[in-house]
């Protein structure tokens, strides 16, 4: 790991790779995930799923299933008249269980609850459902064709406060949302151009593969609901559950144990409403633990078809960019409207472009629903846009590094009107990657190198809170609503609290993700936690220190001078630690001082986005021309994170993100048949990277203190995924002359492209 640091030195233990605080639990098997939990009296649920991609449900007969010994309940939509069964993040279009119509193969139709999982499984086979097949739409092209079957006849309500300030636009019954991004005089930009490059690109339907499948346990008691779930955003799940079951949010408790991977796929509400409905009807606590194959059918990533044109001056400066993006969201909106909004924003890249006109349609098809996935619309558009930067460089006779350097915005410069200025030094980041790739020395024969870069409007919404509680022994308990999904927030946030309170790290306990025990956080996603939750902790710690100073004046000073000191106060020059202050102020047994921290869209966190997340990667590749196999020989990432609170964890995030991008560039794809069946819906055929696939890796951390967060930090962990596909495609082009326009770049696709090249195509 190389660290390039121009920021001031932060207080200990900031910037130190302290060991992860969940380490012993995770290496001994003691870490409890939702899938490991059981509740006394708990029953097990299994789901009857649709074999049809689009069908009306004529009848459901559960009598044989109910008659099986050990079966407690068999629940379909007809049994849930007292429940608001429609939920969804952006649009409430998703019934928690099929409501008279199924819209994809794998949709839940009946939920079985039994004494044990095996009995529930047996009962699944006994449910008789009579379907009337309907015409199907599997591709985005078919969805917009004349006379296309309409997938949603029912009008879905837009949910408030879900990231859309405006009403979601739609221009076709199968368009779930239409987002546009437009500024400058686009016609002038293209009319006066020296060069226009134009083309089509395809990005695959992907699957995040969080290794822990979706799992939830629901228990009703005294009119309230408790749900344990492997989810990223417990407070949003709480809101959706409150809505479904007409409960005050305060009567819904969502607890998130350790989470076995998320990557955006556990953002928002998934199986929690269904699990709670089954528990309600069964009158028992219920656990619903999906398999991985069922998880693939629950949420996938948005595939994309992109038409893009970029206009350049003779010196390689961008004049304008037009793009039409079609995202395949499958049967339900989930969070794809926001993915579409972000895809429209992000396809312009980190460049100064005078005129941009982008439309992004999120389109319904009869396939499994798509939603958030690491990168959130960025990888799809970046593949197209960064491929085009290299095409332009080649046509203009420019170095691909140089054309990027001529176009990236300067620090402080806004990418489009009204947004936060660029909080990164992109030119310097490009230079770091080039240096690591040995850019200026020609590669070996048959090798190609490329650099690609992205900028994402990140951080989601700046809405979060924290409490910092100082006990009578001076130890510190911090509560935040943010979820530890493996990214290391339980370590990093504790480091921030220790630094801010001036106490050793082992005096800090962090409590996360129990909506009845901790204060609110909007979400764990968009790389926002270190930056925004970190600010909330800093603010709560400052509040606690101010209260402690007052308490010391009140109870310890005796007219003497009180001043702040590390880990406590000085009274007439004598140090009293926080515990002594708490004990003196309460003048009795125990006591606790509680500091509050709020982050909202105001002050330093008013400008949006909260920060720009940068992806800047380089690769060197060679291609086996006989087989079409691409070999990545070197992968370089820059983590431009402002201040790495824990460098080891930042590096691990960058590598993990880049390898996920590598997987989708090289091999990962969910493939649907024309009749709506998923061909690669399992871990045998959906091939994620293995240890033997990993290329040599160079990690660089750029720490310039330019983020809005604590000590100049800003988010990381998604950026290094976004440009990987374009970098590999561009490097393959430099190695072979072949331009790849469809990811993943499987050996077959590469081999065919090489054949076309050799045929003079």
């Amino acid at each position, binding site marked *: 790991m190389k660290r390039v640091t121009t920021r001031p030195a932060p207080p200990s233990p900031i910037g130190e790779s302290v060991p992860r605080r969940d380490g012993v639990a995770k*290496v*001994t*098997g003691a870490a*409890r995930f939702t899938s490991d939990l059981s509740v006394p009296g708990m029953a097990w649920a299994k789901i009857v799923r649709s074999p049809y991609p689009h069908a009306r449900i004529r009848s459901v007969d559960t009598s044989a299933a109910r008659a099986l010994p050990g079966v407690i309940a068999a629940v379909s939509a007809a049994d849930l008249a007292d429940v608001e069964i429609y939920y969804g993040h952006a649009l409430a279009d998703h019934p928690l269980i099929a409501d008279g119509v199924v819209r994809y193969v794998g949709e839940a139709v009946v939920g079985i609850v039994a004494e044990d999982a095996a009995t529930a499984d047996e009962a699944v086979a006994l449910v008789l459902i009579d379907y009337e097949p309907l015409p199907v739409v599997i591709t985005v092209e078919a969805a917009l064709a004349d006379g296309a079957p309409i997938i949603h006849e029912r009008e879905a309500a837009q949910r408030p406060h879900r990231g859309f300030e405006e009403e979601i636009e739609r221009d076709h019954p199968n368009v779930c949302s239409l987002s546009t991004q437009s500024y400058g005089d686009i016609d002038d930009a293209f009319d006066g151009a020296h060069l226009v490059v134009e083309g089509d690109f395809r990005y695959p339907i992907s699957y995040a593969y969080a*290794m822990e499948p979706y799992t939830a346990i629901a228990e009703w008691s005294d009119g309230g609901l408790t749900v344990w779930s492997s989810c990223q955003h417990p407070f949003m799940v709480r809101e959706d559950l409150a809505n479904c079951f007409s409960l005050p949010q305060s009567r819904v408790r969502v607890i998130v144990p350790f989470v076995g*991977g998320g990557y955006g796929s556990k953002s928002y509400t998934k199986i929690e409403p269904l699990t709670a409905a089954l528990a309600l009807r069964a009158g028992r606590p219920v656990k619903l633990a999906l398999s991985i*194959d069922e998880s693939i059918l629950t949420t996938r990533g948005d595939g994309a078809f992109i038409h893009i044109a970029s206009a350049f001056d003779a010196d390689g400066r961008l004049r304008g960019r037009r793009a039409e993006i079609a995202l395949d969201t499958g049967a339900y909106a989930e969070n794809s409207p926001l993915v579409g909004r972000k895809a429209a924003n992000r396809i312009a890249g980190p460049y100064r472009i005078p005129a941009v006109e982008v439309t992004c349609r999120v389109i319904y098809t009869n396939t499994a629903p798509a939603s958030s996935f690491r990168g959130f619309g960025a990888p799809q558009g970046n593949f197209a846009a960064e491929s085009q930067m290299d095409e332009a460089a080649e046509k203009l006779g420019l170095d691909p590094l140089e054309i990027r350097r001529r176009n990236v915005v300067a620090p402080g410069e806004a990418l489009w009107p009204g947004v936060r200025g660029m909080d990164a030094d992109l030119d310097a980041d490009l230079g770091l990657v080039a240096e690591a790739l040995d850019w200026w020395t020609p590669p070996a024969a048959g090798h190609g190198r490329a650099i690609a870069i992205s900028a994402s409007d990140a951080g989601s919404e700046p809405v979060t809170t924290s409490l910092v509680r100082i006990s009578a022994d001076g130890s510190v308990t911090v509560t935040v609503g943010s979820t530890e999904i493996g990214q290391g927030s339980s370590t990093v946030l504790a480091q921030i609290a220790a630094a801010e309170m001036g106490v050793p790290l082992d005096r800090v306990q962090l409590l996360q993700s129990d909506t009845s025990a901790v204060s609110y956080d909007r979400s764990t996603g968009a790389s926002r936690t270190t930056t925004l939750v970190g600010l909330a902790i800093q603010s709560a710690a400052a509040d606690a220190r101010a209260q402690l100073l007052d308490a010391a004046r009140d109870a310890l000073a005796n007219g003497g001078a009180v001043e702040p000191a590390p880990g406590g106060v000085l009274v007439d020059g004598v140090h009293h630690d926080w515990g002594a202050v708490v004990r003196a102020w309460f003048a009795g047994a125990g006591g606790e001082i509680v500091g509050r921290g709020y982050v909202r869209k105001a002050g330093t966190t008013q400008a949006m986005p909260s920060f720009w997340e940068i992806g800047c990667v380089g690769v060197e590749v060679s291609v086996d021309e006989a087989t079409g196999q691409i070999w990545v020989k070197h992968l370089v990432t820059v983590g431009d994170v402002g201040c790495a609170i824990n460098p080891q964890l930042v590096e*691990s995030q960058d590598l993990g993100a880049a390898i996920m991008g590598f997987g989708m560039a090289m091999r990962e794809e969910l493939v649907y048949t024309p009749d709506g069946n998923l061909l690669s819906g399992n871990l045998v055929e959906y091939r994620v990277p*293995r240890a033997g696939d*990993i290329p040599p890796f160079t990690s660089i951390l750029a720490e310039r203190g330019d983020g809005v967060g604590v000590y100049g930090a800003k988010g990381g962990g998604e950026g290094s995924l976004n440009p990987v596909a374009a970098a590999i495609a561009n490097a393959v082009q430099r190695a072979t002359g072949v331009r790849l326009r469809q990811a993943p770049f499987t050996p077959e696709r590469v081999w065919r492209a090489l054949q076309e090249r050799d045929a003079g195509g």
Partner: protein
Amino acid sequence: MSEIVELNLAVNGRSRTVLVEPRETLADVLRERLGLTGLKVSCDVQVCGACTVLVDGLAVSACTYLAVDAGDHEVLTVEGLARDGELSPLQQAFIDVAAFQCGFCTPGMLMAATALLSDNPAPTREEVVAGIDGNLCRCTGYVPIIEAVLAAAAARTASRPDR
């Protein structure tokens, strides 16, 4: 209902007797009947390695291994790696280099690497990669895991120069 059979296992050095149905997997029995939830079930088709445990020292996928086939054999799970509260060198190396993020693959990864190091106490990097190639990790990009296994091997070699 299936028949019930009595199964005797030595799990993490302790002899255990459980009543199981012949159809139950070793993963089911360890997790649901013996409360050893360290091993994880993910892909359920012997691809991901999250359910790896050792049977008589051999790494197996407990998700597709019938519990009855482990009868009268020695089973080692991640809960059995630490001795008297002291982490194994491999467990410690995983912590030292942060060879995990979410931790869901970690128990299986540790067991696969334990089997590797037991067969080959001083593996090369390539041998480590081959040894864990049947265990998926979606978080780390594998590099820290490979480093951890190499570090554990080096620590063991250093502490036992005779081997």
